[in-house]
C-alpha cells in the first residue's frame, strides 16, 4: 500500500482508541476494584449478561430463518426485506424505544390488548430489556447470516436434495455448517450490540435496579447522578470495555481456529 496512507490510518486508529485511553487515565485506580465489585455493579453486569444472552438466543431463533428468507428471495423482495430489516441499524435507538412503547406499552397497539386480555404488562420489566436489545441487535445477525448464505450459494443444497436429503436434513447438515463462520460472527456481534444497548432500553424498559438497570443504564445513572464524582461511572465503563474486548477477542480466536 502507498506509505502515505499510514497517516490517515493512524488518525483513524487514534480516533477509536484514544478515547479509551482518556477513560483509563481518568480512573481513580485505587478505588476501581471496590466500585467494580459493588453490589450495584455486579447486579447491573449480571442483568446485562443475562438479558444480552436471552436477546441473542431470541435473535438466533428468528434471525436465521429471516436471513434464509431474504437470501432465497428474488432481488426485489430481498432488497425490500433487507432495507426494512436493517432500519434499526441506522435509526437512533431512542426512536426504537419510543416505537416499542407505542406498540407494546399499556396504551400501545398490541400492549393494550395484552394488558386487557392476559394482564401482561411489558414496559418496566426484564422482558422489555430483552425485546429492546433484540430490536437493535437482530439486524447485525441477519445481515451477517444473509451475507454468508449468499456467499455459500445453493449448489451444495441442491446436490444434497437431488441425493434424497429432506429439507430439514439439508438445513442441518449442509446449510448451517457452510455458513457457520458467518453465523458465529453474527451471533457475537449481536450479543455485543445487545450488551451495549442503551437508548431503546432507557425509554422502553426504564431504569430500576436489578430489573431493568443494565450496565449502560447503570453507567448513565452513575455519571449523571453523581454530580462531582464520576468514579463509579468510570469504573463501570472500564468493566464494560473489558467485557467487550474479551468478547471480540473470543470472536477472533473462533474465526482463526482451523476447521471452523
Amino acid at each position, binding site marked *: 500500500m502507498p506509505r502515505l496512507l499510514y497517516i490517515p490510518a493512524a488518525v483513524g486508529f487514534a480516533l477509536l482508541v484514544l478515547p479509551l485511553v482518556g477513560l483509563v487515565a481518568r480512573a481513580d485506580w485505587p478505588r476501581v476494584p471496590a466500585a467494580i465489585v459493588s453490589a450495584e455493579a455486579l447486579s447491573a453486569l449480571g442483568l446485562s449478561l443475562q438479558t444480552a444472552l436471552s436477546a441473542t438466543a431470541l435473535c438466533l431463533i428468528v434471525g436465521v430463518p429471516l436471513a434464509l428468507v431474504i437470501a432465497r428471495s428474488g432481488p426485489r423482495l430481498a432488497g425490500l426485506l433487507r432495507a426494512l430489516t436493517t432500519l434499526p441499524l441506522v435509526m437512533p435507538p431512542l426512536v426504537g424505544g419510543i416505537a416499542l412503547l407505542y406498540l407494546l*406499552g399499556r396504551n400501545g397497539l398490541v400492549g393494550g390488548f395484552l394488558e386487557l386480555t392476559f394482564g401482561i404488562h411489558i414496559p418496566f420489566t426484564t422482558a422489555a430489556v430483552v425485546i429492546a436489545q433484540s430490536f437493535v441487535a437482530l439486524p447485525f445477525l441477519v445481515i451477517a447470516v444473509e451475507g454468508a448464505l449468499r456467499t455459500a450459494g445453493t449448489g451444495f443444497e441442491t446436490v444434497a436434495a437431488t441425493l434424497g436429503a429432506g429439507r430439514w436434513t439439508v438445513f442441518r447438515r449442509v446449510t448451517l455448517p457452510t455458513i457457520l463462520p458467518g453465523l458465529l460472527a453474527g451471533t457475537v456481534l449481536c450479543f455485543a450490540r445487545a450488551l451495549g444497548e442503551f437508548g431503546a432500553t432507557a425509554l422502553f424498559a*426504564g*431504569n430500576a*435496579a436489578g430489573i431493568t438497570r443494565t450496565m449502560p443504564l447503570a453507567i448513565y445513572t452513575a455519571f*449523571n447522578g453523581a454530580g*462531582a464524582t*464520576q468514579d463509579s461511572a468510570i469504573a463501570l465503563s472500564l468493566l464494560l470495555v473489558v467485557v467487550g474486548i474479551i468478547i471480540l477477542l473470543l470472536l477472533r480466536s473462533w474465526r482463526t481456529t482451523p476447521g471452523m
Partner: protein
Amino acid sequence: MAAALAVVSALTLSGCSSSVSGSTASTQPGELQGTLTIFAAASLTESFTELAAIFGSDHPDVTIAPISFDGSTTLATQIREGAPADIFAAADGATMRSVSDLLDGEAIPFASNSLQIAVQPGNPLNISELADLSAPGVQLVLCAPQVPCGATAQTLLDREKIVVTPASEELNVKAVLTKVQLGEADAGLVYVTDIAAAEAVEGINIPEADEAKSTYPLGILESSANPIVAEAFRDFVVSDRGQSVLSRYGFGRS
C-alpha cells in the same frame, strides 16, 4: 451530547443574530448585548422559557441561546466537564454545591417547589395519599435518588415511613411525568409546577409535601463569557416581575 448541541445551536444562533442586528438595529451605548447561555433544571422548562423570552424582548441586543433543560445533576456534570454556560439554575442546593468551585460568587435561592402525586386523568386507581403509592399493583415511577426530585421524594417517603418499589427511576422529573402521561405508570412523584404545566395528567396534593420542599438556587459561572448579561438576568429572575412569572407556574418564594 446535549452540551455539544447547545454549543452548536448557540453558535448558529449568535451567527444569525449578529448578521441581522448588523444590518438593522444600532446598539445604544450602555445597552446589554451578547449571548446568554442558560442551563436550567428540567422542572424550570416552562417558566424559564417565558422568563428568557421576556428578558430577550427587554434587551433586544441580547441573544439567548436555546436553554439546556435537563436533570440538574446531568447539567452539573456537563458544567464540570466544561460546557460553556453563563447561568446555572438547579433544582436543589446539593447539586449547586457540586459546582460551587466553578461559580462566580454565591448561588442565590430564587424559588421553591414541592411534590405532588401525578396520576392519570380521572385518577382511575383512586390514589389519595402518599401511602397509596406502596399498594401492590400501583405502577410507580420516581426520579432516581441521585437527582433533586428523587432526593426530595426520598426525604418525603422516609419522613412518612413509606416504603415503595418504583418500576423505574428516571434521571429527570420530565421523564417521570412522560411515563404517567403515556399511561405506562399509574403514579409518579413530580413537582407541583410540572403538573400545572402539563396536559393529560392530574395532580394529587400531598399535605406533608411542605416538609420536603426543594429550594432552587441560581449561580453565575466564573467561566461566563458575559457576566454582565448573566447578572442582569439573575436580577430579573429575583425581581418582582420575574417572581410573578415563577409564581404563575406554581413556584413558591424561596
